[in-house]
């Protein structure tokens, strides 16, 4: 029994470091591509190949400053952005509260999956703009209806991802826990849910981007603030540079959120796909 404890040398060689070096290449290409497109834009606008009404020059940046300082359509850029951000985040919060439990139920029970699947699958491919009139007729033109439209767009992404995460738990992981004394509830709480977390986060990330793409539709009716509202107002008056300011603002915020979500994923689920 003198060999009961393994020499640390053996233990040490048993571990192989798996750290990968960071490759900055992707980031460089990304930045390069962005700059190249900006350059093309600038050249086309500068040479006036297209009238400024259709494509203002990148010096729209000046307009950015103006909209931030003086505002457009009775609100500053920050106020418009805040209104939109609130709508998207409120919709996301409610969607998570509803769609995660629904997704878990769908992942666990074929009966419940059969119950929810037709509803979700039936309206998921419909553009929100198509059912906007219904939402307005049923729920009016208040803030709630706007949040509801975005919420409806987010729910399927989160619910379906969650369900697929729950179904994707390796059977060994569940069976091992059961032979270690886990009750059904403990298997759900300590194995299935943590195991589904990566996919819940992916669903949230997809939901956010779907939410932002629904924003303009949501702010189509009776909005007084919001980036989507600002774009539509500017478009009505052919103020193309403000339209571009609005588009770029949405892009920037959505991109920042996407990036933040990726950081959250890395932080909460560094093990994703590793074991």
């Amino acid at each position, binding site marked *: 029994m003198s060999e009961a404890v393994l020499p640390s040398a053996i233990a040490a060689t048993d571990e192989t470091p798996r750290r990968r070096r960071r490759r900055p290449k992707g980031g460089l290409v990304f930045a390069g591509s962005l700059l190249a497109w900006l350059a093309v834009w600038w050249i086309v606008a500068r040479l006036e190949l297209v009238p400024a009404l259709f494509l203002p020059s990148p010096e729209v940046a000046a307009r950015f400053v103006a909209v931030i300082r003086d505002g457009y359509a009775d609100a500053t850029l920050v106020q418009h952005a805040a209104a939109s951000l609130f709508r998207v985040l409120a919709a996301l919060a409610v969607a998570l509260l509803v769609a995660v439990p629904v997704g878990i139920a769908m992942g666990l029970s074929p009966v419940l999956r059969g119950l929810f699947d037709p509803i979700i699958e039936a309206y998921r491919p419909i553009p929100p703009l198509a059912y906007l009139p219904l939402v307005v007729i049923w729920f009016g033109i208040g803030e709630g209806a706007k949040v509801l439209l975005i919420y409806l767009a987010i729910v399927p992404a989160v619910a379906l991802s969650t369900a697929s995460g729950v179904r994707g738990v390796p059977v060994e992981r569940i069976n091992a826990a059961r032979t270690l004394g886990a009750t059904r509830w403990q298997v759900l709480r300590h194995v299935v849910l943590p195991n589904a977390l990566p996919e819940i986060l992916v669903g949230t990330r997809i939901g956010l981007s779907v939410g932002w793409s629904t924003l303009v539709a949501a702010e189509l009716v009776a909005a007084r603030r919001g980036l989507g509202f600002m774009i539509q107002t500017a478009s009505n008056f052919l103020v193309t540079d403000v339209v571009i300011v609005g588009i770029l603002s949405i892009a920037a915020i959505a991109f920042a959120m996407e990036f933040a979500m990726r950081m959250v994923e890395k932080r909460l689920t*560094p093990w994703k796909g590793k074991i």
Partner: protein
Amino acid sequence: MTITGTPELEARGLTVEYAGGDRPLPALRNIDLSVAAGEFVAVVGPSGSGKTTLLNAFAGFVPPTSGEVLFRGTPIRAPSVERAMVFQRHALLPWLNVVENVAFPLKLRGLDRRRRREAVTPLLVTTGLVDFAGKPVWTLSGGMQQRVGLARALAADPAVLLLDEPLGALDAITREDLQRVLLDLWASTRKTAVLITHDIEEALFLGTRVVVLSARPGRIVAAFESPFAREVAAAGGARKVRASAAFGEAKAGLRDILARHAVVGAAA
């Protein structure tokens, strides 16, 4: 070795069939096997011989189609912490670090963090994991991960260890290391164990008894005592035992038996 009293695990006329397309798919046919307390039974057989089905029946995952499986004389109906299972892969919880994985059975029993960590420290020492306690399990090599799996099963303090090819995915050198770890753990805890393996040498080295299954549907075609595990446990010298003439002969004999029964429909 003579078996006295009620065996820890017993299969009586165990037949398991899975629902197939138009007719049931037989996995095991009429298995009679009893495992006494403290025994280490190694089950070998060709792929698809129902080895894993046998283990799943003992665990309580798969009900018998006919016959019975018993734990200490009582029919097995569901998984129990008395029969902890170790899998080849995918069974650890990657969101927990090494010590929390090992202490998982104690967490299920409601022990708080400090007490469960204290409780598993000796296990971390004997399995060579103590320096890795705080590491995320997914950063460990396959061999270290299997140590975590073994330590975790022992932390549950089961009566029986069910080992489903736990070393099957490891390279040869790591595998021998872990066979040694497994043997030492068995010798020091005297847990009853059932090991499924397709590795002849592993079966002979670890099993106090070797049971050979035929190709599908699995029947027991041979069962014999193997002295090597007890020799190593008593006197050490794993390498010498492996290199001995007796071990070589046993390997050749077992290979013969397997070769005769590896093909479906081969003579019994």
